[in-house]
């Protein structure tokens, strides 16, 4: 059914594929010898060929959405296994299942050949599976050494600080880093905190270390340091499951690459058999069904003009014009900082520098109220935490930002007006609920999204920023939201749509701004944008992380070519 099968690595039935991959896995690791970094020789131990971790036929669904469907993953000792996929491909769910935070609906987990159930993070810890996240789970008031050993129960009845610090130092030495182990963790950089977490994991005899985008907020120097640590771990026989959106990193460090897409397993291949183009194609190569057909029309005059928008340490150099009746897509992967640009324009986390013009007037946006008065609305990606008040009614949620407008003399709320306004939106957006006086929390995700957008439409914005407007909602509601955005644009509203759903951005946008790591990489017009081009622009590494002539540098060059739209055929 999937078109990319032909000539695309191997597309054998899964079991065979895995076995073959297993036998090949050990070999290609040494072939990539042009690395700048030392590569560990694999211990010639036959035991190593037995997988340390196997997840087989894992399926998991949340409500109506199938997050994982029959996905398998095998990890061998001493391998670095990259997991690739777009946002929402199912990587996080797979990790949560591996670490016991969630239980699969179906499928089996095996550790060193034995069937296991992982019901909690303690179970995972006991079985030697640990995960490092972007945001480390650190105890700021405890010292580095204590952070490493706080979970240990076998270190005697009395804390031997000296022994603990010595062991901590030894553990850190194993990783090839030096930190002041007596210092409280509060003062550590994010990278150092991550290192402490890795040390904590290996102090507990970790066999499988999952790293979920560990490099997302690290500097180039810190990434190199982290890679040195990871290669050290591989040498010591740890299986590392490495998730990154940066292609250079994946090609620099991984032994094997597994690609997921839309909750399904696509391929598992030795790194040497993967090309940048084939990987990107694997990630986006879904059957292109035009989800939604926009009524394209000529946009009006420039409504919002942004020049060199900058927020220290977050994003930089964001420059674009947004016209009346235009839909501008913001594409990028996790950590691209698209949402931060939205938050800056809405005044939640204002920009430090740069110019913003609204209808030709210079404006400075310091807080949300100001943004709303200027006619900028921001519909958040996080409906639950930031968007709606779930126990409150639909009507109460819709009137919230424009509450002053519903107040009569003495500050009394005009309930009739509030309800009739909500009713209007219920009809216009087809919010499926018996009454606008039911709690927002009782609605389905799609209908909640419609309430969220209604709440902002009621403020009559000139510029509407919608962040992930269709995340986690069903297909029917998705089409309705798309139709709504199209209608709004037709009525002359300027819309920014921030979305991780590539087909959605492609279908909905008149132009697409691609970001990565806080920088604006490209703006494509509707006609010239393809999934491959956008993803290539979004996945590169910024800065000169790796020296010229390395594999990574070649990857970077290839990504550049792909952004230009050349070399796509090479992957097919």
């Amino acid at each position, binding site marked *: 059914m999937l078109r990319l099968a032909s000539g695309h690595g191997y597309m054998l039935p899964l079991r065979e594929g895995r076995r073959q991959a297993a036998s090949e896995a050990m070999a290609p690791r040494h072939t990539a010898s042009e690395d700048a970094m030392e590569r560990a020789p694999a211990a010639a131990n036959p035991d190593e060929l037995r997988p340390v971790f196997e997840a087989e036929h894992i399926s998991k669904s949340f409500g109506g959405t199938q997050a994982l469907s029959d996905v398998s993953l095998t990890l061998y000792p001493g391998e670095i296994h990259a997991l690739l996929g777009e946002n929402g491909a199912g990587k996080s769910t797979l990790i949560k299942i591996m670490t016991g935070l969630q239980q699969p609906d*179906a499928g089996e987990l095996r550790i060193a050949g034995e069937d296991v159930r992982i019901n909690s993070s303690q179970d995972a810890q006991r079985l030697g599976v640990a995960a490092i996240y972007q945001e480390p789970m650190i105890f700021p008031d405890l010292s580095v050494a204590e952070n490493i050993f706080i979970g240990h129960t076998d270190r005697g009845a009395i804390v031997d600080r000296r022994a603990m610090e010595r062991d901590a130092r030894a553990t850190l030495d194993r990783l090839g880093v030096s930190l002041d182990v007596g210092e409280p963790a509060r003062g550590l950089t994010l990278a150092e905190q991550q290192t402490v977490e890795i040390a904590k994991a290996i102090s507990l005899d970790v066999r499988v270390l999952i790293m979920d985008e560990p490099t997302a907020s690290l500097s180039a120097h810190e990434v190199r340091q982290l890679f040195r640590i990871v290669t050290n771990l591989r040498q010591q026989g740890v299986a590392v499951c490495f998730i990154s959106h940066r292609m250079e990193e994946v090609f620099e460090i991984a032994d094997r690459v597994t690609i997921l897409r839309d909750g399904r397993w696509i391929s598992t291949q030795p790194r040497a058999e993967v090309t940048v183009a084939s990987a990107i194609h694997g990630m986006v190569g879904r059957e292109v069904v035009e989800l939604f057909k926009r009524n394209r029309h000529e946009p009006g005059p420039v409504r919002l003009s942004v020049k060199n928008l900058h927020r220290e340490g977050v994003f930089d150099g964001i420059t674009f014009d947004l016209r009346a009746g235009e839909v501008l897509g913001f594409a990028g992967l996790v950590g691209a900082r698209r949402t931060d640009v939205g938050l800056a324009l809405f005044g939640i986390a204002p920009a430090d520098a740069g110019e913003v013009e609204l209808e030709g007037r210079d404006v400075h946006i310091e807080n949300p*109220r100001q943004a709303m008065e200027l006619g900028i609305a921001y519909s958040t990606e996080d409906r639950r935490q930031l968007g709606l008040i779930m126990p409150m009614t639909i009507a109460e949620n819709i009137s919230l930002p424009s509450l002053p407008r519903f107040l009569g003399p003495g500050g009394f709320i005009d309930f009739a007006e509030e309800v009739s306004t909500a009713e209007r939106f219920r009809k216009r957006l087809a919010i499926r609920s018996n009454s606008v006086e039911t709690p927002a929390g009782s609605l389905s995700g799609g209908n909640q999204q419609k309430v969220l957008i209604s709440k902002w439409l009621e403020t009559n914005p000139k510029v509407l920023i919608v962040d992930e407007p269709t995340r986690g909602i069903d297909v029917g509601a998705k089409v309705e939201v798309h139709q709504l955005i199209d209608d709004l644009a037709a009525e002359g509203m300027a819309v920014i749509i921030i979305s991780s759903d590539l087909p959605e951005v492609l279908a909905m946008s008149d132009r697409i701004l691609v970001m990565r790591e806080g920088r604006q990489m490209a703006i494509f017009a509707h006609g010239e944008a393809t999934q491959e081009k956008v993803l290539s622009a979004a996945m590169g590494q910024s800065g000169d992380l790796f020296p010229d002539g390395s594999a990574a540098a070649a990857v970077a060059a290839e990504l550049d070519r792909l952004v230009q739209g050349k070399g796509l055929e090479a992957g097919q």
Partner: protein
Amino acid sequence: MGRLLKRLRSWEGLLLVILLVVLAYNILRVPNFLTITNQINLFQLGIEKAIVVLVMAFIIINGEIDLSVASMMGLAAAIVAVLYQNGTPMPLAILAALAVGAAFGLMNGYFVAKLGITSLAVTLAGYIGFRGLARMLVEDNSVGDFPEWFNRLGQQGLIGPVTLSILIYIVLAIVAALVLNRTGFGRTTYVVGNSAKVARFSGVSVERNKMILFTLSGFIAALAGVLYAARLGAVRSSTAEGFELDIITVVLLGGVSIFGGVGTMLGVLLSTYLVLNLRNGLVIAGVTGNTQTGIIGLLLILSVLLPNMAAAARSRLKRRSESAAATRAPTGAGSGAGTATG
């Protein structure tokens, strides 16, 4: 009928049932319990606390707490007493006490809203500090000798048997119910208590809401303190000591969640009446004041503990039925790895 049942199953319904039981006890034990005079006496005994309960409900719905109210009551009473004793005209003394209440309330609000310090810590300082100021003013004396009209205002009926305090309470209760249910300010209070984050992302000024509430809390507590002084006719440094426990208990018992965002004025008014009746019943049954406070303390714990335990039991049941469902579900549902890729 179904609606009535639903109503009864709510917290307010539960309160109503308990209230009826206690009320029945009181009616059976006390002849003419339900006469106006008896009812007014009942309210008069706890009227100052009942007044502060109204504003405390707002504070807790907003997601904060104010431990300093009772000390503020004592301080306001002390200010009135000492200023008058030193020759200040009574109306001016009252104004001064109210102004001090509002000012200290504003200060509490500033530390909570602007500096982001937890209200527990800030108002704990006020709890000790305001009481300390009262102690500075009256030391270990009992300051009284108020003008005749002031005492009368506190003790005797203004309109028929209805005292000024009860009149103020009725007005404030109506205002509080209206503000909480029907105005933008009340709505904002709920919104902030439910999620300060959503409020911020909707352009609502969280800080302003909290500042106003704490200022009001100080002001109303001071007012209640002045009324208390008028009723007692004399002020000591320990006046109104320990009242915060009663006040907070009544609010929580009224169904207001300690975590904010949930609660109704109806529930709070019901629980106020319930606690007044309960105290009355306990007096009839010969239970001393100190023990009454203990029983209120027990109620306070239970009003949080029982809903928690119920919620825990529900989620445990749910988990059990879920895991049962999971084991029943066929494993290896998708057998089509090969077909999907091949």
